[in-house]
C-alpha cells in the first residue's frame, strides 16, 4: 500500500461519513415519511459507496476489493427495494379504499 494512496483515500472516506451524517440529519429533520425515505436511501447508499471506494484504495488484495464491491451492489439493490416497499406500505395505510388499491398491492 502506497502512502499517498492511503492519504488520498481519506477524501472518499470523509465524504462518505459526511453523507451518513446528512442522512441521519434528514431522518430526524424532514417533516414526512416519504421525504425521510429520500434522505436515508440516497445519502446512505452514497455514503456506503464512498466509504467502500476509500477502503478499496487501501485494500490489500483483489479479493477484498471484489467482496466490498459485491456488498455495495447488494446494499444498493436492497436499499432501493426496501425504500420502494416502505413507500408502498405507507401509501396503502394512508389510502386503504378499494378504488385506489392497485392490483398487485395485496396477494
Amino acid at each position: 500500500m502506497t502512502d499517498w494512496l492511503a492519504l488520498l483515500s481519506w477524501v472518499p472516506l470523509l465524504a462518505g461519513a459526511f453523507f451518513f451524517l446528512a442522512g441521519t440529519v434528514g431522518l430526524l429533520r424532514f417533516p414526512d415519511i416519504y421525504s425521510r425515505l429520500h434522505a436515508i436511501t440516497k445519502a446512505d447508499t452514497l455514503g456506503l459507496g464512498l466509504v467502500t471506494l476509500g477502503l478499496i484504495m487501501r485494500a490489500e488484495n483483489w479479493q477484498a476489493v471484489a467482496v466490498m464491491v459485491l456488498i455495495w451492489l447488494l446494499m444498493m439493490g436492497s436499499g432501493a427495494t426496501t425504500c420502494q416497499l416502505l413507500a408502498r406500505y405507507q401509501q396503502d395505510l394512508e389510502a386503504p379504499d378499494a378504488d385506489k388499491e392497485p392490483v398487485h398491492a395485496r396477494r
Partner: protein
Amino acid sequence: MHRPKAVAVKVYAFVSWLILHGALWWLLTGGHGWAFGLAFAVSAAALSLYLSRSPLPLRLHRLPGFVAMFCRELLSAGWDVARRALHPRLPLAPQWLDYPLQSRDFHVRLVLSAMVGLLPGTLSSRFEDDILWVHVIDATQPWQDTVAALEQALANLLEDRRA
C-alpha cells in the same frame, strides 16, 4: 420462436448463470474446494434458470456507460438531499406525481421503479397502467428529464427487442 433457438437461449442463460455462480464461489472461498464449488455452481445455475424463466438479455458493452451515468446521478442525488437536510430552512416541496412510462418492457419498468429512488429528488412506490407513481422531494425542480434519461438508458441496456 423456433425450437432450436429456444434451446440455444436456455443453454446461453445456463452458462451465464454457471459463470456467475462459479465466480461467486471463487470470490468467497479464494479458489478452494472446487469439488463442492462445482456442485454448488451447477445446482445454483439450474435453480436460477428454473426461477427466472426469462433471463435478462443484458447488453454488456453498454454496461460501463450505464454505470458511469448512474454513479453521476447517485452523487448528485446524495448531494441534493444532503443540502436540503442541512439547510436551515429545509427547502422541501414534497408531492406525489405521475410519470408516464415510455417503455413497454416489464423488466425495464421494474428496475426503473426501484432505481428511481436513487436519482436526485425522486422516489417511486409502484407502477400500474403505464404510470409510475413518483414522489418528488421538491416539485419545483425539474425531475422528469432525469427519470426519462434513466428509462432510456435501461431500455438500451436490457429491453427485450424480440417482443
